[in-house]
Every structure is written in C-alpha cells, then in structure tokens.
C-alpha cells in the first residue's frame, strides 16, 4: 500500500511536470504583462484550453490525493524524502524527452537538492 502510493505520487508528479514544461515551451514565452490582475483571467482561460496542461493539473490532483493517502499510512518523515526522488527522475527525463542540456553542474545541483530534501525530513 505504502509503496503503491509512492509510485502513484512520483509517477503523477513527473508526468504533470513533463506535460507542463512541454506544453509551455510549445506555447512560447508568457509575457509578464499577462500576469497583471486585469489580464490574468484571460491567460488562465487560454491555458485551460490546452489539453496537456489540463492533463497536467489532473495528474497534480492525483498526486495530491495520493500524498494525503500516504500520510494516513506513513509518517511525514517517510513521505517527504520519497517525493525528493522525483527531482532526479525528472532531471533524467528532461534530458531524454525534453532534450534539455543537463550540464554536470546541473546534475550535481539536482543531486544536492534531492539529498537535502531527504535530510529535511529526517
């Protein structure tokens, strides 16, 4: 049960982030002006019409509820470090699927962050 929830959380978080990154790059750069109060509604509506982003939010919801479920069967000190694994998995997939150039410095940074998040929950 515990590890099934972990797999669902990590899997859906990874999918949500990959979908968001892919679709937002495809859409093109968002202008800062679009985030102003008068225009933010229009931007939100525009994003809500993009299938991959809707799917990403759906996966975020799955991840959220699976995390809640995990907290009912495991401690926070187990749940948080497990989610840190997604940083490394997403970096690998960003390189393989999104064709990002992950330099050694970026690899090192991702590993430090994942290790650090794991330590935070000890």
């Amino acid at each position: 049960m515990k590890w099934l929830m972990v797999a669902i959380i990590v899997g859906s978080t990874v999918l949500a982030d990959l979908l968001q990154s892919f679709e937002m790059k495809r859409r093109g750069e968002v202008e800062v002006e679009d985030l102003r109060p008068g225009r933010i509604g229009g931007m939100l509506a525009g994003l809500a019409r993009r299938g991959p982003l809707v799917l990403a939010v759906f996966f975020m919801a799955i991840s959220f509820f699976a995390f809640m479920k995990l907290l009912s069967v495991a401690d926070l000190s187990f749940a948080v470090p497990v989610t840190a694994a997604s940083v490394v998995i997403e970096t690998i997939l960003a390189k393989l699927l999104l064709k990002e150039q992950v330099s050694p410095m970026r690899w090192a940074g991702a590993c430090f962050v994942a290790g650090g998040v794991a330590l935070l929950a000890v």
Partner: protein
Amino acid sequence: MAAGRMVFEELKPTVVSGRRLDFKTKALTAFVVLTNVLGNFAMSWGMKHQPAALANSPLVYLRTIFSPWVLLGTALLILWLLSRMTLLSWADLSYVLPVTSIGYVLTAILGKYFFAEQITWQRWLGTGAIMIGMILVGLTSPNTTAPHGRETNR
C-alpha cells in the same frame, strides 16, 4: 589570475545578452517560491485553526473551505500554478525544479516559528545541501532548448 580573466572574457557576451532574461527569470523564481510557501502556510494555518466542536458536521467542511485563511491559500496556490507555468515557458524543467526547491527550506523555517516544530541538525544539513544545489543550478543558463517560434534573448 590570467586564466580566470580569460574565462571571464569568454563568458562576457552571453552574460550581457542574457542579463535581462536572467533577472526576469530570477525575479519570477522568487515569486513562484513565495506564492507556494505562503499559500501552503495559509492553508495549513486555516486548517489548524478550525473550531473543533462541529468536527463531524458536513457544515464544517464548507466553513473550512470558505474561511479567510483557506481562501487566501487557494488564491495564492492558483497564482503559484500560473507563475510556475510562466516560468516553465521561459526556463528548463531541470532548472526550475532545483531552484524552486528553496521552498522546502522556507516551509521548514515557517513551521519552526509558527507551528513550534523542531529543526534538528540533520535539517540544517539538508538546508545547506539544498542551498548548494540551488546555487549550482542557478549558475547554469536557464534555457538550453531551442525556442519554439520565439526568441529567448528579450
């Protein structure tokens, strides 16, 4: 010294042309982190300060959802989602993830001061590791993929 200067001279053109994008990206990163941390905090505060008397009534859920703190938290988390998507339109996923993970640290610090949670030496060590990771990734160029139809250096 001389070697260091040579490296600097080589880096200079990229630094200058990318400076505006760089500043924009860092400012938005700060906004993404703040809305996430404050949004989670407001949610958490709202949930922990509910009247316990109505605990079994469905009304309590409605009251919780429409309490000022939870509404504020929801608004902040919507802003977080939008600003994070914006950041992902400017920068790599492998850049955004590590640099926004400072949020874990800020959440731990807020937890210490407002919810009287303890910070052990392992947590400080974790905090240090996250900061190092963040700085390492922050030094790399935010966007390494070819832009899709738009130029990056604006």
